[in-house]
C-alpha cells in the first residue's frame, strides 16, 4: 500500500538528494482533485486524470518554488523548506476544501474472493494490479529510456551531466512530475479504498512511505517495492500479535532498526 508513495520518495531522493516531506501532501491533493471533479462531472476516468494532473501541478510548482532555489545547499535547508511547504499545502487544503472529510462519490461494489483461505476484495486486487503496472512502467522509464539515463546521470554528478548537454532543470522537473503522478495515483486509490479524503490524510502515509523507501534502500526502485511490502506486513503482524495501539510504532521501529543495522536498506546499493 505504501509502495507507490515510497516510489515517489525514492525517485525524488535518489535523483535530487532531498527528502520531500511534502510528498504526502501531493498525495492528498491527488485524492481531492479526483473527488471534487468526480462530484462535479461524474466521469470517473476524467476525474482520475484530473486528480493526477493536480498532483503533478502541485509537485512541479513545489519544485520550482521551494526546492530549485536551494539546489546545492545543505540538505537540511531543503528539508526545512519541504516541511514548510508541507505545512503550507495541508493548511491551504483545509482552506480550499474545508476541514471535513469527504467521501469518495462513487461507491465500488466489491466482491470478495477467496484465495487459499485469504479473503481478497476486488478493490484490493485492482489496487495491487495498478501498483504493479506502475512499478514496471517506472522501472522501464528509469532504466531503458534516454530521460531515465539523464536522471541517473544528474543524480550521480549534476555538473558532468550538464557538460553532456543535459538540461538539469528539466530533468529535476521531470523527476518531480513522475514522483508526483505516482503519489497522485496512490492518493486516489486510497481515497477509493477508505472512501474518504481529508486535509491531513497525507501526513502519516507520507511518513510511512518514506520509511518504506528507506527500509528498502532509498533510491532503489525494487527496494521501494520490497520496503513497502515489508512495512505493511510488519505493521499488521505487529498489530495482530502485540498491540494495535502500537501499530504505527512498528513502521518507525523498523525504520530505525534498518538504518542503524544496515543503512543501505534491504536492496540499497548506494552509500
Amino acid at each position, binding site marked *: 500500500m505504501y509502495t507507490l508513495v515510497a516510489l515517489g520518495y525514492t525517485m525524488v531522493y535518489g535523483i535530487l538528494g532531498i527528502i520531500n516531506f511534502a510528498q504526502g501532501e501531493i498525495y492528498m491533493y491527488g485524492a481531492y482533485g479526483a473527488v471534487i471533479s468526480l462530484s462535479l462531472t461524474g466521469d470517473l476516468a476524467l476525474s482520475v486524470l484530473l486528480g493526477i494532473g493536480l498532483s503533478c501541478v502541485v509537485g512541479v510548482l513545489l519544485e520550482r518554488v521551494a526546492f530549485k532555489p536551494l539546489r546545492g545547499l545543505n540538505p537540511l535547508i531543503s528539508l526545512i523548506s519541504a516541511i514548510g511547504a508541507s505545512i503550507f499545502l495541508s493548511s491551504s487544503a483545509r482552506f480550499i476544501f474545508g476541514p471535513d472529510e469527504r467521501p469518495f462519490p462513487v461507491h465500488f461494489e466489491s466482491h470478495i474472493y477467496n484465495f487459499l483461505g485469504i479473503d481478497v476484495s476486488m478493490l484490493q486486487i485492482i489496487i495491487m494490479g495498478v501498483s504493479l503496472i506502475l512499478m514496471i512502467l517506472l522501472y522501464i522509464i528509469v532504466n531503458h529510456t*534516454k530521460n531515465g*539515463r*539523464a536522471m*541517473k*546521470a544528474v543524480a*550521480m*554528478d549534476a*555538473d*558532468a*551531466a*550538464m*557538460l*553532456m*548537454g*543535459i*538540461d538539469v532543470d528539466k530533468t529535476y522537473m521531470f523527476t518531480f512530475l513522475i514522483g508526483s503522478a505516482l503519489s497522485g495515483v496512490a492518493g486516489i486509490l486510497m481515497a477509493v479504498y477508505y472512501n474518504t479524503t481529508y486535509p491531513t490524510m497525507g501526513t502519516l502515509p507520507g511518513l510511512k512511505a518514506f520509511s518504506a523507501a528507506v527500509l528498502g534502500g532509498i533510491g532503489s526502485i525494487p527496494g521501494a517495492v520490497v520496503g513497502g511490502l515489508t512495512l505493511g506486513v510488519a505493521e499488521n503482524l505487529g498489530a495482530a500479535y502485540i498491540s494495535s495501539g502500537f501499530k504505527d510504532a512498528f513502521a518507525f521501529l523498523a525504520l530505525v532498526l534498518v538504518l542503524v543495522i544496515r543503512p543501505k536498506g534491504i536492496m540499497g*546499493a*548506494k552509500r
Partner: protein
Amino acid sequence: MLVVSNLHCYYGRIHALKGISLHVKSGEIVVLIGGNGAGKSTALKAISGIVQAASGTVTFNNNDITHVSPDKIVMAGISHVPEGRRIFPRLTVEDNLLLGAFTRRDSSEIKKDMGKMKELFPVLANRSKQYAGTLSGGEQQMLAIARGLMSRPSLLLLDEPTMGLAPVIAQDIYRQVIYLNKEQGLAILIVEQNARIALGLAERGYIIETGRIMLEGNCRELKQSNEIKRAYLGKDYREVWE
C-alpha cells in the same frame, strides 16, 4: 572559431578570472598553462557555460555564447571533458557513451559513433557492459574523452587529461588526442599544469596566472622564453630537455 575576450568570472567572492582573452582557430591545438588556482579550469567552465561570466564575451563561430545554457553550447559543437574525468560511476561504459550523445537524435549515427569510439579506445570495447566506476584511471580518462566526442564536437575542451596517470598511459592518451586533431581536424583546447608536455603538444599556448593571461604565443617561442623556463620548466631545463 572560439574567441574569448576580456572575460571576468567570480567564484563566490573570489575574482577568479580577471579579464582573460584567448582564441582557438579551427583545426588547432591550443594549451592553457598555469599553476593551481590560476583560473584555468574556470576559463573552460566559463566557455562551456557551467560558470556564468560577470562580463566579457565568448563567441563561437561568430555566435555570442556568453550567456547561453550548457546544453545549447554542447549542441553548438563544444564538448568539455572535465577535470577529474567525472564519468558516471554507476552506469555502464555504454550508458556513459550514450549520455555523451544526449543532445543528438540520430540514433543510427549514434550507434556508428559508438563503434568508432570503441575502435579509437579498444579497452572500452571489452568493457562496454561494465560499470564505469570499475575502470582504471587511464581507462576512465579514455571513457571521458570518448564520451565527450559522442556529441560530435568541433571543439574539444580537455581539462588536465593526464592528471594522476602513469607517464606511459598519459602518452597513450596524448597520442589519441593528436590523432583526433591531425586526422579529424578537431580543434582542441587543453588545460595542463605540466608545461613540458603541453608545450610539446600544441601549436600555440597561453600562460595564465592568478586569473590573467601573462604570456601567449607560439609554443616554440614560449619554450625559449626565460620566464617560462624559470617558472614552469625548472632551472636546469636545458640539460634535461636536450
